[in-house]
């Protein structure tokens, strides 16, 4: 299992993120995608206009292989977990076609796959021992599982998940 970081040189519109995710999830070896970016608030949280709705045009529900995913960030980085390195060239091709402004691709390890003390405190030993290994590191103490993680079913009955940070 390897991880690839895709780092476009611009922050992406929701439309481009949607296209990118759809193309990435059609690859066979992709298991998980973590979307990293700048949070887009629903309401103004500070100052004289506090409480006014922001209505950011990039905070919307996108469709990834039929699953509605609410984008709460402006995507700037993707961490893609792959089964093996056979399709890295395909990822490069996708990036080339979608990011004309430039991008970086890096193969490495970017997320944790081992349980930590925090997990034991948060979920308890039994849940940690039972839970799916691919979910480790996907929930952080301040986010809810339902709003942060989306499971996108694969045709062959496998599951892949996507997370926003």
């Amino acid at each position, binding site marked *: 299992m390897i991880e690839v970081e895709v780092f476009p040189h*611009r922050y992406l519109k929701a439309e481009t993120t949607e296209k990118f995710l759809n193309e990435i999830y059609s690859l066979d070896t992709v298991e998980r995608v973590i979307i990293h970016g700048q949070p887009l608030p629903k309401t103004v*949280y500070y*100052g004289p*206009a506090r409480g006014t709705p922001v209505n950011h045009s990039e905070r919307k529900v996108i469709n990834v292989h039929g699953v509605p995913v609410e984008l709460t960030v402006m995507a700037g980085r993707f961490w893609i977990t792959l089964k093996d390195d056979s399709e890295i060239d395909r990822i490069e091709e996708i990036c080339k076609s979608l990011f004309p402004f430039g991008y970086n691709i890096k193969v490495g390890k970017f997320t944790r796959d081992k349980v930590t003390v925090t997990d034991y405190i948060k979920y308890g030993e039994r849940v940690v021992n039972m839970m799916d290994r691919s979910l480790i590191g996907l929930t952080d103490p301040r986010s809810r599982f339902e709003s942060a993680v989306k499971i996108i079913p694969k045709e062959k009955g496998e599951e892949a998940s996507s997370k926003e940070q």
Partner: protein
Amino acid sequence: MAYTPQFYPGKTRIAENRRKHMNPDVQLEKLREIPDDDVVKIMGHRQPGEDYKTVHPPLEEMDLPEDYVRDLVEPISGAKEGHRIRYIQFTDSMYNAPAQPYDRARTYMWRFRGVDTGTLSGRQVIEMRESNLEEIAKNFCIDTAFFDPAVCGIRGATVHGHSLRLDENGLMFDALQRYVYDEKTEHVLYVKDQVGKPLDEPVDVGEPLPPEKLAEITTIYRKDNIPMREDTELISVVKRIHRARTLGGYMPTDEIFKEL
């Protein structure tokens, strides 16, 4: 004044641009014409056409104790009228914005009277009597080459974005999306005022400058444009100040300054 101000050291284009900003005799290139009312709307302190609110009666009508400083210093027009003090705040992207906070502070100090300015890493606020502020905001801060609609933002609160990558249209990230890029006209429209309250009608602030032009007029040293290390004169001045402060700060003897 007994000496001619040099404004800023350095031999590169960036240093030259900084000198141009600070020198009050240099007229910066006028690039756009935003109507007065639109600037007032973006600032959001009063409705266009509304009278200026005052915090004290006009100075002439006031019975003030005698003070010779008052005779020496001529008050600015807003102070004479007793107008309120209001603010406008700018954020400048690190992607070759024409100005940056320190440059802004020095420029305001050199060019204007009656201004109180605050410098932070990502934003720069000016406080001034309302009527004078509006005049400066329009005629200098927005209409000239001191501003670019894409990489400068008028942001009163929630300023985050100056150190981030630009978005796909080349605009600086703004969590509150105060301005949007109109893909048909290729102009930037302000849809909210500087604190994030929606405007009735969008305000057009014109077309973003092309990246080549920005690289030419910027005052930011960057490795992909002109790096600071290329400016040997500036480096020598910075080193001199550093040496004088660290070695001579508490013991300013002649010996320390001998080789400077």
